[in-house]
């Protein structure tokens, strides 16, 4: 364990050194317009009241957060020049940088921080981020103290990137509903490195340099144009013919392969560890059928060849994910059972569970839904794989998202392929899938598997409050071990998210928050 941490550290140091050397080799250049993409139109641009990657990308340019993260999961000062836990872990003191101003010239004060926390807490879908924040005290204009009802280590990640944008109280505090505020999508006044110019649905978002940004000399770019292009092939062609400089969150493997073969383009999966998307096969463990028995779930995992998914369906572009925590996270624990293909073991487990094969070789029947058109190959592959161990599977075709979500969230399914995001800290995006308190009818991406384990509930409770990083990692190790044994879902791979950039782009956003990181360091080479 310790050696692993050390290697990781060594790798990180090496990475940082490399970054430094490239940075030294390439002096950033001022000016230029970066043309990048969004795969769909955002509802609006205010991440305080809207999650999701298409709001987060321009949102992280418009609004600054107290902290930012480097490639190594280490928090760095941003709008807060320092941050400090109290000894009991019940309060967090933020010191804001002096002279930071909103885009309309008003100073950014601790009042705005308090207002932002309140707004996010009341309106953002991720209630676990600031749920335990009781009040925000503002002893002076540059000091904000977050008072917590219990220790909450996830707060650090929740104070970064798109999760905690500092929004101006003098604009959003006018009494209108923040979720439907007219300034969310037009005339946005932010605190970040780029200012709002234009947002036209299905066309583009245009931002320009904030000359008054609180970090001297930055940003380097004059403008960012986000072109809204829904068709993945069209984005790939735009990258290849040079019309686009960079595209993020690409996940169609054939297009990524094509683009990576182009000599002007670089394709990388770095930068998606915090968002942490994981593909899995979910089981309805609360159903009356065979899936309530963990031996059946294990048998299914043994029969579905993960290597085939990684090599043939994902073309080697996604990583093996053995648990519900993303492999890029420091809390990931890979030494659990990975359920490598073993049909004998699968058959033995099914026999043991009391499901013998009948005269035609069939044990029982199940259905499988695929939660997204892109997981159709996995669903078909599961059907073929499970036929080999006598499970007859019917594939329900994907109609559209609401139909699927309605079915799954009302627990009317046997198995489904799904993709769920970590969102930084496990408390924000991982716990929800396994928490027995979070079995909620009609809510997608709650504990739709109806999984219940008092031990897991206890570990999550403890880990959510454990300030000591080593103790916390030990708790999550146990968490991942128990889950790998219980297998409420069978995790197979990370989503093959890739950033593809033209080699004209300097300092592409490869930190843990990918395109939801501030682009103040990004530049265009001559």
């Amino acid at each position, binding site marked *: 364990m310790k050696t692993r941490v050390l290697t990781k550290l060594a790798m990180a140091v090496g990475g940082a050194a490399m970054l430094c050397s490239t940075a030294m080799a390439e002096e950033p250049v001022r000016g230029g317009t970066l043309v990048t993409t969004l795969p769909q139109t955002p509802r609006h641009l205010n991440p305080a009241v809207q999650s999701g990657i298409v709001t987060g990308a321009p949102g992280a340019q418009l609004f600054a957060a107290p902290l930012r993260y480097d490639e190594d999961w280490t928090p760095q000062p941003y709008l807060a020049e320092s941050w400090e836990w109290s000894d009991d872990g019940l309060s967090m003191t933020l010191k804001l940088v002096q002279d930071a101003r909103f885009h309309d010239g008003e100073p950014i004060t601790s009042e705005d921080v308090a207002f932002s926390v309140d707004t996010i807490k009341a309106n953002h879908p991720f209630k676990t981020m600031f749920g335990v924040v009781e009040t925000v005290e503002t002893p002076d204009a540059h000091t904000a103290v977050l008072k917590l009802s219990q220790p909450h280590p996830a707060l650090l990640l929740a104070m970064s990137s798109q999760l905690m944008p500092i929004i101006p109280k003098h604009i959003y505090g006018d009494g209108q509903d923040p979720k439907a505020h007219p300034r969310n999508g037009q005339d946005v006044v932010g605190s970040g490195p780029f200012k709002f110019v234009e947002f*036209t*649905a299905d066309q583009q978002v245009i931002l320009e340099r904030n000359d008054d940004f609180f970090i001297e000399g930055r940003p380097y770019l004059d403008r960012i144009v986000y072109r809204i*292009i829904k068709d993945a092939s069209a984005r790939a062609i735009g990258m290849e013919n040079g019309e686009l400089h960079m595209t993020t969150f690409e996940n169609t493997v054939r297009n990524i392969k094509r683009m990576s073969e182009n000599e002007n383009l670089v394709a990388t999966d770095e930068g998606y560890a915090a968002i942490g998307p994981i593909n899995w096969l979910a089981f309805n463990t609360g159903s009356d059928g065979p899936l309530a028995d963990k031996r059946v779930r294990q048998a299914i995992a043994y029969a579905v060849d993960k290597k085939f998914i990684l090599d043939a369906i994902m073309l080697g572009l996604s990583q093996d994910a053995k648990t519900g925590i993303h492999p890029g996270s420091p809390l990931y624990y890979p030494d659990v059972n990975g359920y490598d293909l073993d049909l004998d073991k699968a058959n033995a487990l099914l026999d043991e569970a009391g499901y013998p094969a009948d005269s035609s070789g069939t044990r029982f029947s199940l259905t499988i839904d695929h939660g997204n058109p892109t997981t159709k190959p996995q669903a078909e592959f599961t059907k073929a794989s499970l036929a080999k161990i006598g499970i007859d599977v019917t594939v329900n075709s994907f109609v559209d998202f609401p139909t699927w979500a309605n079915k799954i969230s009302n627990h009317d399914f046997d198995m489904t392929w799904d993709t769920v995001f970590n969102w930084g800290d496990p408390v924000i995006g991982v716990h929800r899938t396994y928490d027995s308190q979070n079995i909620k009818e009609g809510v997608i991406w709650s504990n739709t598997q109806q999984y219940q384990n008092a031990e897991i509930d206890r570990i999550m409770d403890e880990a959510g409050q454990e300030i000591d990083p080593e103790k916390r990692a030990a708790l999550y190790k146990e968490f991942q071990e128990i889950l790998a044994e219980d297998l409420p879902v069978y995790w197979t791979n990370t989503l093959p998210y890739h950033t593809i950039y033209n080699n004209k782009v300097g300092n592409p956003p490869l930190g843990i928050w990918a395109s939801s990181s501030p682009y103040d360091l990004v530049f265009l080479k001559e």
Partner: protein
Amino acid sequence: MNILKVLAQRLSYALALLIAVLVLNFTMINLAPGDVVDTIAADMGGASAELMEQIRTEYGLDKPIIVQLGNYVWRVLQFDLGHSYFYNRPVTEMIFERLPATLLLVFSAQIFALILGILLGVFAAIRPNGILSHIVTLFALFGYAAPVFWTGILLLIAFSLNIPLFPVAGMRDVTIDGGFFPQALSVAHHLVLPMLSLGSIFIALYSRLCRASMLEVLGSDYIRTAKAKGLSPRDVTLKHGLKNALPPVVTLAGLQFSAVISGAVLVESVFSWPGLGQLALTSILARDTPTILGILFFSALVVIIGNLLTDLALRLIDPRIRKST
């Protein structure tokens, strides 16, 4: 007098049809499981039960379907198409913002298909068993049979990537500053590929019909007379032949208008053309009921007006139709 009576009759049918379009579509959308709140939750990467309940109450989605329908129809009768749940903006405003892009695409594709279709049809009719005629048929059938989004992607690969003549997406180059002409030129430049792929479906229809119609006309007595008079082959084909062969083609073009609009939905998605089609697709996937209904309402209106105009035009052109009513 007669024509006014017909017009009044058609208009009352149209009104009934519009209300039927609204009621039927409203019911159909609500019969599907799931609603816009599920999509909003998904767009957020997950949501709490309380938040979802709160949004349902705000939008009145917790009320019985029949009450929601009543409220909706009542608002439409007051010329209010409501607010989009998903984008939180007035539906009418969103539709008018996108209507020009769609109309530009649809009309240019239609005109392109008509001109090329008629030309090809005439050529094919002059030598009905010649090799050119067969090539034209083959080419046209290919365009008709190929899915329009596939044609679109092929065109992109050919003319954006291999021979980079045209931009890959969008309607104009946002980095261009300047007056009306550079902007218009940029729009025209972006329009070429979407227009070609949308038009390709209809070239087959028009050229086949034009060919058949030409063959029929060219075999008639007055053509023989014209030839016997010693007119040049060109005059015979164009003045006497084409002029009489055209009306069926024009009628078909009028009737195909609704098909062109539905084809535009796919083409707009491939080329990121910011028109009604893309909005329709997004709203359907999001179950954004007011926006879907607004778009269907407008499309129905456009089709009704199109049919009405075709009807009236034919009555004016062709004396036989005027007499028969």
